[in-house]
């Protein structure tokens, strides 16, 4: 049986990966761009934050620098797609591939960094409340942006790319800005995760995309918001539910599930939700 402490841990990790899920939502849903940079930009945020905190930088400034670094990487993916005309999938893959070397360089060519004794945003504070506060301010800022005139233009990009230029929207710029916003969020999540753990590992970004997509799909299914900016909230809720579910699945000893089966469980969860949605649609047809 899962303990209260384990549920709180799931909520903490759910909040961190909720920000990551929001970033994934921004590309996959808002601007309709299949961005695979995320596995690399998550580690980038973690690496930048870890190195800065380890060398005594204010942890909040470290998070801000992670956010900016993510934005710059989003800009690179955007330029590859928009200016060099590389497909969305390939431009993301190339940048994520390059990021592996860059992240190693940032980490001083070490595969991991430990800084548990250094001050983090969680030092002397309640972890869950601190995470809730950071998530609240990040999401509130993002929702207000998406509800603005600029947000309206950004959202229209994902729905109808032919329509944009007719009403004066520079689609190319919107794609680049969307990628910058998305990767900023993912890198911020990476930065928070490294400070939460007190260490950073070069391979911790593996599976970021799939877990983020799982959170997006679960959130959409559970809350069923129709107004798009509010769907941002459902990513956070979806992420928390996903983490609690994974925790229960891995701790319940049902079917002999082990920690190493996390990808298997996540994969089946996503397939089940999507299949249930498709079957429901077919029933209505």
């Amino acid at each position: 049986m899962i303990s209260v402490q384990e549920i709180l841990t799931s909520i903490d990790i759910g909040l961190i990966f909720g920000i990551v899920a929001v970033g994934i939502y921004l590309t996959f849903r808002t601007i309709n761009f299949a961005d695979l940079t995320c596995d690399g930009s998550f580690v980038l945020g973690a690496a930048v934050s870890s190195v800065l905190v380890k060398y005594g930088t204010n942890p909040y400034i470290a998070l801000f620098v992670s956010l900016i670094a993510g934005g710059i990487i989003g800009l690179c993916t955007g330029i590859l797609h928009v200016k060099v005309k590389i497909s969305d999938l390939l431009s993301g893959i190339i940048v994520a591939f390059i990021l592996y070397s860059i992240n190693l360089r940032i980490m001083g060519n070490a595969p991991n960094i430990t800084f548990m004794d250094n001050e983090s945003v969680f030092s002397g504070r309640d972890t869950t409340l601190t995470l809730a506060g950071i998530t609240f301010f990040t999401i509130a800022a993002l929702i207000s942006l998406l509800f603005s005139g600029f947000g309206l233009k950004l959202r229209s990009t994902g729905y109808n790319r032919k329509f944009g230029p007719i009403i004066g929207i520079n689609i190319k710029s919107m794609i680049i800005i969307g990628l910058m916003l998305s990767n900023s969020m993912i890198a911020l999540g990476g930065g928070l995760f490294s400070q939460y753990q007190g260490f950073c590992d070069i391979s911790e970004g593996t599976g970021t995309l799939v877990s983020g997509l799982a959170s997006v799909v679960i959130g959409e299914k559970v809350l069923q918001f129709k107004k798009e900016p509010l769907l941002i909230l459902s990513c956070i809720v979806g992420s928390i539910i996903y983490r609690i579910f994974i925790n229960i699945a891995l701790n319940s000893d049902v079917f002999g599930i082990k920690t190493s089966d996390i990808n298997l469980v996540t994969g089946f969860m996503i397939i089940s939700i999507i299949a249930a949605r498709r079957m429901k649609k077919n029933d209505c047809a």
Partner: protein
Amino acid sequence: MTALELIDVSVNGILENLNLTIQKGEFVILIGANGAGKTTLFNTVSGATRIDSGKILMNGSDITNTPQYKRSARISSVIQEPRLGTIAEMTILENLKLAYMRNSSKFTLRNTVGYFKEKLELLGIGLENRLNEYVGNLSGGQRQLLSLVMAILSDYEILLLDEITAALDPKASNTVMDMSKKIILSESKTCLMITHDVRYTKSFGDRVLEMKGGQLSF
């Protein structure tokens, strides 16, 4: 005074050294069979298609290399397919806001609802009372009328209409054409309407041009 001038414009072998001059305030109708090059001409003027050679002048200034999204501040257009001319997943109000911001560098949208309602009332189909409804719930004809209102929301110099009834049934086509005529005449701005339906040439426009094999006949 000349509003729009195409000089020796060639596009993808469809238009060859085409010349066209439209005066300011003139309402020109362009007819022609399918494949004559009407939509290519529309895309050329709106900026959706790049030209191979020639020049496009607007009020005497060269807009040949101006991208479509920048041209749209001065050239407003309504395309054939209502599904592509509006965003189904957004509300009527959101679609109108997007169109309103077309030639505005600011993103300010305050106090615009009254103005939107005033414009929608011109249509007389009650859309002004359905602002928060999703555009996907509207019929093809209603969506095309909404596109038309979106095209005239902010300041523009030339209105382009590309076979706006092509995707509609006869009844909806008549309604859309009647409303279009009413709106175009009330706006008194330069307009180029493309259609393959010669029925409308009698009661519409100052001048009718015909397009055949990528060339205009007057």
